[in-house]
């Protein structure tokens, strides 16, 4: 994939990604059998040309191996209270070491996600469980967003992302 001249994501999209949203990701193996996992955090580069998601490999199944083998992944960012949802695709994903500041970033994310879950009737303990990682060893996977789509439920779901705020559900 070539790097587009303008980033796929605009500042509003980047802000949405860095707000307290649930991050989930999909990859696939050589036979196109998909894998799926929940990320425990995310980071976006200042120029918006690189997204990093953080995973607990013990809970990610074959996802990490699939990404390493193909570089292809899809990452969904969802704000459950509003159903606003964004999907980003990448084809150059690689595993990277965690950077300075990532640990604090992940702590902040986990803390911020508690009210997000409780707002949709899931207890705080649910957030801690879903975002927990047995053994504590995390993996960072970084990729260039090459395409992005609206995935908020409604008639516009699946459309390529337009600049500005995501549509509300049903619109």
């Amino acid at each position: 994939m070539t790097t587009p001249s303008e980033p796929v994501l605009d500042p509003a999209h980047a802000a949405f990604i860095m707000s307290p949203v649930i991050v989930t990701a999909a990859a696939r193996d050589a036979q196109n059998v998909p894998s799926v996992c929940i990320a425990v955090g995310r980071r976006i580069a200042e120029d918006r040309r690189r997204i990093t998601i953080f995973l607990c490999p013990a809970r990610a199944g074959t996802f990490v191996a699939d990404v390493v083998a193909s570089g292809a992944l899809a990452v969904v960012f969802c704000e459950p209270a509003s159903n606003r949802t964004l999907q980003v695709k990448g084809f150059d994903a690689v595993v990277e070491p965690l950077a300075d500041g990532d640990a604090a970033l992940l702590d902040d994310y986990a803390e911020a996600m508690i009210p997000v879950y409780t707002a949709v009737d899931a207890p705080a303990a649910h957030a801690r469980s879903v975002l927990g990682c047995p053994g504590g060893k995390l993996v960072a996977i970084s990729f260039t967003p090459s395409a992005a789509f609206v995935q908020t439920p409604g008639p516009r779901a699946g459309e390529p992302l337009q600049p500005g705020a995501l549509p509300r559900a049903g619109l």
Partner: protein
Amino acid sequence: MDALRACLEGVIPGMMATCAPDGTPNMAYLSQVQYVDAEHVALSFQFFNKTRQNVLANPRATLLIVDPDTSALHRLAVQYLRTETEGPLFESMKAKLAGIASHTGMAGVFVLRGADVYRVLGIEAVPGAHRPAPPPRCSVMPALRRTALRLARCRDLDSFLDETLAALAEGFGVTHAMVLLVDRPGQRLYTVASRGYPASGVGSEIPRGQGVIGVAAREGTPIRISHLTSEYAYARTVRASAAAGGLAAMLETEIPLPGLAEAHSQLAVPIVACGVTLGVLFVESPREMRFSYDDEDALVTVATQLGLAIQNMQAAAESGEAGETPTETAAPSAAGPAALPETAAAGAPCVVRHFAADGSVFLDGDYLIKGVAGAIFWALANDYVHLGRTAFTNRELRLDPRIRLPDVSDNLEARLILLERRLVERGACIRLEKTGRGRFRLAVGRRLELAGAPGAS
């Protein structure tokens, strides 16, 4: 999948990964994962989206589902098999989706186009620190056993219906319930018993195919909704649409349906025997997500016992009726048990008016019943007044040309229960009293006057 059914409930949606033929993965949230059987699940197909395109081209998909009680995650390897656009699975998912849509502010957005059936190829438990599972609300199997034994002691349909509803209340904490039976050719169901409502609503009717109860009857499948939804409200809205569709004339509308004003959970289970849907056992609750898959299992089992009982008791009543002719006759003045209500106008006649067009019967101007039960009552009243008869058999009523039962296999006993309960509820001066298998007597507390009126028979 049996052990994971709880993961298919709850407020936390599942996730689904698919892959296009060119190797591009895709992620989507699932609004509904339906348990089909131990090896199959069904997903709601609502939009022609990337997920849809992908599974049609590459049927392998991976789901991630969450146990709402423990937060445990499970990964399901699945393979797309087919899409169903009608029938029991489709209707069951459509109703459930209506509840989910309403709950998540997606009413009008979430519309079921099809039920996509997947084979479950493998299940992987995701390791993690899970929350401890809460203790079960009630232990279903012992409650089911107690219920089955309790019902096994019933000797007639009347007590079987009441005991069923009492057992649901005492064994399962189900405080609002009703039994409706199918009026087979009439495309409707009539309430024959209820529990937990200010008025029993016995005799009220709903059209087959509408609302939770009507759809469960038409499809012969349980319909369970865990959230408040106007789409499947079975009371006013259903009957309003029936009226708009020209069904009002044939539908019992004088007797209000029992029911909660705002049911947040509803479960309608068909009563089936020998492959035929005889009626619906319906329960509801003001609480969201009140009824689980386990409750559905229990209710299906109870409804099956009820179905067999209805059929067996009908057969027994008919065999008991065979060859018997009533011999008892009594003068009207001699009839009237102590249970009959005292009336201020004792001595004044009770005016019975019958309208042949719809079979409706009025006692002293108050509406009693219409349809088949109305025709039965009118025949009994005529025989009482003109022939002085008080003793009757089910068998003679079944053959009586004045009654015109809609079907040879019509459950006459249930019609009599309905009539008997209406008479009691209205405080009428007439009662039906069982005198043996397939036999009953008419107990009359006041003189009856069969009044003619314009349009009356």
